[in-house]
């Protein structure tokens, strides 16, 4: 027996991981935080049908591995595993964006790999920013996200938007603040802020203009990634400029945003999947009035949109609040150009907050309220139990984030201390609990007043509809044409802002200025390669011969010199 084990040890022992080096895992507050962000999404999506897919578990394994990685190989292995598994899931959902997605995913891996090896400095950070930014959907490399995230099944979309993007940001944080932290320069933060604010603007605008429900959510993810990046950028800049309190404030905002977004976005994606399942479409222009058939789902979606719109008393407001204060504080000191920049950033953030509200209202108002725009929407039935359960779980977890962000911030303290040593914590100036009390009080008082002074009489009538008559009997929900569509709702904004930023054809600048030129370049080079490939035997022989003579001549040249 002993002898056997020796044989096993000597000859059959396996070197798990990188041959000769192996795997290394470690955990610290930052990693634990991101694991905590991932956990509820994994549980919620795991309740759905996706758990039967092997790729889904590979996907999760990749994310967890990335977060827990202690060295470059494991980190990259996890990262690429995550990309590969999610690519397969995207592919099975929709073949069209899969290649683009794989390309971007591999591009980010290709950027991260060198960054892990070259000495800390600007180049390393730029590569990290490119790599992690591309994966997270940070402008200008964001154009793939609204295409790829909606493609797979709902649970996977939820995990991609809520989890995978966070893992990319985790890498950005880990390298920007910890690994490369000592070499940090203010411009790192500035770059992050610029990329973030562009994402915020484009993401929120497209979220307002898109018609597919999942695409809207994906665009909103771009916006939230931008918000987090803005927070991280301010923190990084402040850290480099030796302003730990501002850095802590911005970081609080960014991390809280990551937490909140990790809850409400998967919830919304799961809901969007359920809508698609129930109606066969997720285009807002074919939905409407879903809340009648699926009240529970509608309520949960409302809760999610509440967070997405960053309204007070919702989970999304506290992060937005912190971020806005961070921007205001950042605008308070420093170079005049930077201050003007921060002022503009503030305007962008205001614009996008309103756009986010508009997008959220659009999802609920067009999709769930109003009249059905198709028979399938009219016949929609309540989502399945596991989906509702998963969404409910995420919804319940939103409550502490929404009402007690102060507590969550206390829990974040170790992370913030890890990232910015010696940061002074500023108390949160936003107290949702008393506000919620006041709101309930006001609502209660209103209700009591109505009860006391008003009549209770109610009568169901045909809608006023600007005085138009009753629709014919064969249109049980009225004429569908007389109600605003998703496109129509967004039309004023498309006219005023969409044309200015996205152009007349509403093409994402990331598509127009980044992906399209690359495609054209590829086509050109491919044509050249085809010319080489079409060479005749004699010409191929001539290649060999020419290369040989060239090498010989070079050799003669070098040796002669």
């Amino acid at each position, binding site marked *: 027996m002993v002898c056997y084990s020796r044989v096993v040890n000597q000859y059959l022992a396996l070197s798990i991981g990188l041959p000769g080096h192996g795997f290394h895992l470690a955990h610290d507050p930052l990693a634990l935080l991101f694991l905590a962000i991932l956990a509820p999404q994994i549980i919620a999506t795991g309740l759905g049908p996706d758990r039967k897919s092997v790729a889904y578990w590979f996907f999760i394994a990749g994310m967890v591995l990335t977060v827990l990685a202690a060295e470059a190989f494991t980190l990259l292995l996890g990262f690429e595993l995550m990309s590969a598994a999610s690519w397969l899931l995207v592919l099975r959902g929709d073949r069209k964006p899969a290649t683009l997605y794989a390309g971007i995913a591999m591009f980010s891996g290709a950027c991260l790999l060198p960054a892990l090896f070259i000495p800390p400095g600007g180049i390393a950070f730029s590569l990290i920013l490119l790599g992690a930014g591309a994966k997270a959907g940070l402008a200008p490399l964001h154009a793939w996200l609204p295409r790829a995230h909606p493609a797979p099944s709902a649970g996977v979309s939820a995990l991609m938007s809520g989890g995978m993007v966070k893992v990319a940001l985790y890498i950005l944080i880990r390298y920007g603040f910890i690994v490369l932290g000592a070499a940090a320069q203010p411009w790192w933060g500035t770059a992050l802020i610029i990329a973030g604010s562009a994402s915020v603007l484009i993401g929120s605008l497209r979220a307002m203009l898109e018609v597919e429900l999942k695409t809207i959510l994906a665009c909103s993810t771009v916006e939230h990634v931008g918000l987090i990046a803005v927070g991280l950028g301010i923190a990084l800049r402040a850290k480099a400029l030796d302003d730990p309190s501002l850095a802590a404030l911005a970081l609080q905002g960014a991390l809280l945003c990551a937490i909140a977004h990790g809850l409400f976005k998967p919830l919304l994606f799961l809901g969007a999947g359920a809508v698609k399942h129930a109606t066969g479409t997720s285009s807002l222009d074919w939905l409407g009035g879903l809340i009648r058939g699926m009240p529970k789902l509608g309520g949960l979606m409302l809760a999610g949109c509440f967070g997405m719109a960053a309204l007070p008393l919702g989970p999304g407001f506290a992060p937005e609040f912190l971020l806005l204060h961070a921007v205001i504080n950042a605008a308070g000191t420093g170079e005049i150009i930077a201050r003007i920049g921060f002022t503009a950033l503030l305007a962008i953030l205001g*614009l996008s907050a309103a756009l986010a509200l508009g997008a959220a*209202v659009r999802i609920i108002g067009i999709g769930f*309220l109003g009249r059905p725009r198709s028979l399938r929407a009219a016949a929609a039935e309540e989502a399945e139990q596991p989906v509702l359960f998963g969404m409910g779980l995420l919804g319940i977890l939103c409550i502490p984030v929404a009402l007690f962000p102060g507590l969550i911030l206390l829990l974040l303290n170790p992370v913030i201390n890890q990232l910015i040593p010696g940061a002074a914590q500023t108390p949160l100036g936003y107290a949702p609990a008393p506000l919620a009390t006041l709101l309930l009080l006001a609502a209660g008082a209103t209700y009591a007043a109505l009860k006391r002074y*008003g009549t209770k009489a109610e009568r169901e009538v045909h809608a006023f509809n*600007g005085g138009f008559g009753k629709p014919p009997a064969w249109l049980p929900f009225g004429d569908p044409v007389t109600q605003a569509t998703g496109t129509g709702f967004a039309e004023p904004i498309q006219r005023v802002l969409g044309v200015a930023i996205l152009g007349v054809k509403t093409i994402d600048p990331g598509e127009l200025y980044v992906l399209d030129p690359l495609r054209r370049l590829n086509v050109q080079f491919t044509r050249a390669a085809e010319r080489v490939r079409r060479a005749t035997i004699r010409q191929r022989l001539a290649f060999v011969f020419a290369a040989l003579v060239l090498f010989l001549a070079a050799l003669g040249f070098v040796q002669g010199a």
Partner: protein
Amino acid sequence: MLRALLAVIATIIHSVLVFGLAPLLMGIVSKARARLLGRTGPPYLQPYRDLAKLLRKTALIPDTATQFYKIWPFITLSATAVAALLVPSFSFGLITAPLSDFITLIGLFALARGATMLAGLETGFGFGGAGAARDTLFSLFTEAAVLVLVLTFVLLAHTPTVDGIGIQFRDGHIGLSVSLGFAFAAMLCVALTETGRIPVDNPAGHLELGMVHEAMLLEYSGRYLALFYYAAALRLMIWMSLISAIFLPFGLADSSAMLTWPGGLVSWGVKLIIGAFALAAFEVATAKMRVFRVPEFLGVALLLGILSSVFLFVATKLGGT
């Protein structure tokens, strides 16, 4: 302890006055406007009568309404009411002062607006949708402009709460500056939009194609409509109080010094009345804009807001701080 007690009392007075007088303010504006146009106009108390009438009417629920039909007015009104509790009226130092962060206030307005927009989309008829879409468009610029204004205020007052900003502006010898002038103009534009007045929207108009706020309420009636009306009145009150508290804070009281209260009350009342007349005069003097000119109007407000910050930066640079 005494301070807290005084703050509580002041808050109660504030609530009673704000909630009680909001329709009256509306009445004053309507009356003044009618007078300026040479008409007699409705009585000052007409809004109260309207509300009472609406409360007594049977609510007509459209057949296409969903379960949430009755919830939106409550949310709109409650959010506006909470905002009303946060904005100081006659006195600073209310018990809600620590909560009155400017950004929270913006959020509450957004919450009320969101609920109203959903109310507009609720029954699925064209006008509600059109109104909501236009409201979204306007809100883009107002939110951006307000946030930039907040920056100016915070940089001057070094505090983000409305209460603190008011106190600083009253006591801090900020004086008149170009920045504040720009900010004031921008704030007025925003306030006109937020309260749905001419030139952006016409509260009295009933031409559906041009309506924004009213269009969203077309399917509401009875007590639910009353809630929306009341919320609108409250919003006017809040914005007037807000502008008075920030730009004209002189004379306003402190909750801890009871003796200043009467002065504060008088000063607040006078400012409201002047504001009401000024608003009426402005509305009479201008015409309503086409919808797609409003973004330009608000763009100017945004630009003014940014300019006010920029001038501030330049001033501090010159001042050497």
